[in-house]
Structures are given as structure tokens and as C-alpha cells.
């Protein structure tokens, strides 16, 4: 399956990768070439084969609703690019959207 330039620009946007036009052409070629190697998989019969979900059939371990969070030996300020009054600060969304977009 060949990847188009539009595909590349679209997925670059999904991935917030900021690919410029020149690079987009190169990437289109590279990705198409790589994906061409994957076509062989479509010929493999996988009817009834489950996806791998880890080794052994156990479920996810559960932890009790108490306790202390894992250690942090440096403050947030020591590595945050921008903080103010305890908040992380980021530039506004250009199409500023309210709390409707945040949260669940």
C-alpha cells in the first residue's frame, strides 16, 4: 500500500511533528518503501489467531488504595520549561477552546 503526500501531512499533524513540505516528499518515499515490505503479512492466514497479550495468562496486578507515591527527588521547577505559581504554563491554543475540550 502506497502512502500519499496527503497521508504524510495528515499523520504528521496527528503526531504534532511539524513536517515541512520538502521533508514531506522524502518521507512519502521512505514510508512507502518501508510499508511495501509489510505487504507480505497480508498473505499470512491468521484466522482464529489471537493477538499476543503478554506472557502467561494472568490478569493485571491490583494495588491497594493507600500508600505513598513513588519517589521524586527533584522539584517540578527543576525540570519544567515554564512554571508560575505552581502551574505548568503553556502558550494558549490558537483556536482557544474552553474546558469543553479538556477532561474526559
Amino acid at each position: 500500500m502506497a502512502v500519499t503526500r496527503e497521508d504524510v501531512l495528515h499523520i504528521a499533524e496527528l503526531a504534532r511533528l511539524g513536517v515541512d513540505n520538502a521533508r514531506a516528499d522524502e518521507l512519502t518515499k521512505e514510508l512507502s518503501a518501508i510499508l511495501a515490505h509489510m505487504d507480505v503479512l497480508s498473505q499470512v492466514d491468521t484466522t482464529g489467531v489471537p493477538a499476543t497479550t503478554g506472557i502467561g495468562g494472568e490478569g493485571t496486578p491490583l494495588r491497594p488504595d493507600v500508600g505513598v507515591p513513588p519517589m521524586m527527588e527533584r522539584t517540578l521547577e527543576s525540570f519544567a520549561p515554564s512554571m508560575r505559581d505552581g502551574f505548568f504554563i503553556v502558550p494558549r491554543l490558537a483556536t482557544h477552546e474552553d474546558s469543553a475540550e479538556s477532561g474526559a
Partner: protein
Amino acid sequence: MSRERFEMVVGLEVHVQLKTRTKAFCACSTDFGAPPNVNTCPVCLALPGALPVLNERAVELATRAALGLGCQVNPVSVFARKNYFYPDLPKGYQISQFDQPLATGGFIAIAAKDSGAELKIGITRLHMEEDAGKSIHDRYPGATAIDLNRAGVPLIEIVSEPDIRSSADAGAYLRTLKQILQYLEVSDVSMEEGSLRVDANISVRPQGQSRLGTKTEVKNMNSFSGVERALDAEFERQCALLDSGGKVEQQTLLWDGAREVVRPSRTKEGSHDYRYFPEPDLRPLMLDDKWIGDARKHLPELPDARKKRLGQDFGIAPIEIEQLTAAPALAEYFEAVARASGDGKAAYNWVMGEVLAVLKATGNDLSHFRVRPADLAQLLSLVRDGTVSHTAAKRVFALMVETGKPPAQVAADEGLSQVGDEDAIATWVDEVLVEHPEEAKRYLAGEKKLQGVLVGFVMKKSKGRADPKRVNQLLSTRGG
């Protein structure tokens, strides 16, 4: 207007914060109101190398909610990553559940708006996920402030079938859902505090058509009545559009409560390709039959069951039951008083009357109320056996609220015990007849209607302690 020819079709997605002490995937506290970013750790900050570990209590509460809503709990459910970029979503994905959720099926029964008949609103699914942090847009100009205290708090998402046909029914669904979740003690379910959030999907179609119209999503409603008004507004908008020959576009709209309108969200629709895939950092959630069975056995009593039971046990009318059971704490308080005093009617009157009045005046809830159910029950007994008069009882109650002391002690301290002693009453009656010669003369001459006035004088003289029944009897005897 031809609104009557259209039918509203609504499905609701409700997000509920689970009442756990720690977050879904790390041991950070879920306490509300802490300074920004103090309840964070490598996991919920999404530092490189951090990993999630699932909170057992979150699973317990989610299961309880699912069972209480009549859902089928799936023994195996799978967590999935929902990938998108937003500054309050630290990992760049939310851990949620996708095609193998915790629970499916279920329903909420409401009374339909017009007929009052029972309407079952189906629940499609209930799944577990984590909350994002908070983005605050108006605190600093040109910037957004991010607080990740809320990031990672466990949520359940409850998705209804598109079975709702009116805004009133939507409101009934939400109120009933809230009550059920309160009774199950899984969440504070407060829209004001953000522990319950609602998104709506709404479409319209001509009456009688079975095919669904194009739906829009409505968000940003902050109260149940807000949901109702937003649905009505969007219904109007869609109907007007169709009436004028237009087509409804699929889009996300935001409710503007101040202006009472829905307006389009400015985020592009096409960007929401969440690229769900199973969360590789967590194995599937496996709940065995015993675990689910135990959860079912220990389910707190649901609102409907409690209403039936209280109605039967205490002979209380349906409309009164509704009020009593609106909040589980109130119902519990009432029941304790009723059982201890053996008098459901009196208990009802006092709880819905005096108790609620105090709570309303002080703005507190029952958790801060100083009158223990056993004490209120005792007060009712004292009134019933005549030790305290009805009038005095109100005074005793007020003092109980203030001091937290039991009624017998309060009555004794204040000398408010009702006096039924013949001699004492006789003395008071005699004194009143002497002090009010005009009324006494007319009463003794035959004006029976003055008895009430004279009783009033006696009550005043005795500071409310005289047993009014005995006073009346004595006066009648005197009157001949």
C-alpha cells in the same frame, strides 16, 4: 410551528469520578482543593520511564456501579490507549477502555414525562478510565495554566442508549443515575465539584421514522437543568434547520449557559482519530466469578428497594417516600429514628420538618448534625408519653441541635418537662382565673369558646410545661 412533527432522540455520556483515596494508576492523593501540582508523581506527570499500576478500589467501585445499574460485568476487560495531544493530558494518551469494556447492558428506570409510566433507558456500556488534569485559560494572559492534580483520578464513563425522547426525561435519567450512584457510595456525583460531567448526543427525526437523523454532540453543561435547556435549544435549532430544508451537520457544540444558546466548538472534527490500541503496560483486567459474586452480594441497598421497604415498613405515602429517599443520608437518618421510636409518621414529620429546616438554615448536611437519631427518637417518645408538650418539644429540639445533649437531659436542665401533676395544674388554673376575671366570668357563665384563651394563659404561666390535655379537662370541669 411544526415542532410537533419532530422527535428528539438523545443519548447521554456521563463521566463519574470514583471516590478512591488514591489515583487510578499511582498512589497520589485524589484530595480536592490542594495547591496546583502537589498531588503528582512520575506516573501521573508522565515522566520518562514511569508506569501505571491499577488501583484495586477503583475496580471495586466501578464493578459496584456496573452491578447497581443492572449491567453485565465482563470477567475480562482490556485497557486501551486513547491518543491525542492536549496539555492537561500528560502522556499524550488517556488510559481508557475501548472494545472490551468492564460492563455492558443495563438500564435506568425513570417515570416518563407525560404518562408517568415507567420508561427504561438502556445503558450501552460502562468502562473505566483516568481523568485528565485541568487547563485554566483565563488566569494568565496569552497562556494556559496546567494543574495535574486531577490527572489520573479514576473515572467511569456510562453511555446510554439513544432512548431518551425529551429534555425532561434526560433530567430524570440524570437525577436517577445520580441517586443510584450516591446510594452505591461510589462517587460524590456533584456537577458543581466536577465529579459528575455530562455530554449529550442529540438528533431529530420526523415522528414515526425509525431511521436516526444526524447527531450532534453537546458539551459544557454545568447542571442538570442546564442539560435540559441545552437539549431544548439544540432541538429547536435542528428542527428549524430541517424545516427550512437544510441538513444537520455532525459537529460538536458547546452550551453557553449565560446566553442560553449552543454554539459550535472551534476544534476541527477531523483531528479526532484516537488510534486506540490495547494498553501494553497493563495486562487485561480479570475478575473471577467469586469476586463479582461477592460484589453483588455486598451491594448497598438501591433507591428503589429502599423506597419499597420504607413504604411497607412505616406506611409512608409514595410522594413522601420520594422526598425522604432523595438523598441516602436522609433516608438512613429517618429510618434510624423511625425504628428507634417505633413511630414512622412522627419520625417523618420531624425529619422532613424540623431537621430539614435546621439543615437548610445552617447550610450543613447530616454529617455535621448534632442530634443523633436515637436522641430524636427519644424526644418523640417523651412527647408521646406526655413528658414534654409539643410546644416545649420544639424548644428542646433547638437546644439539642445546639448542644448535642439528649432530650431528657435538656428538658430537665431547662425545666421543660411537661407537668401533668393535678395539684400543680389546679394551682395554675386557679391563678389564671383570678388574674383574668373578665374572661373567667364569661367562661364560667357559659362562653365555651374562651376555653382556648384560658388554656393559653395557663400554658404561658407554666412556661409551656403544663399538659394542655389536663388543663382543658380541669377547665371543663370548672366550667361545669
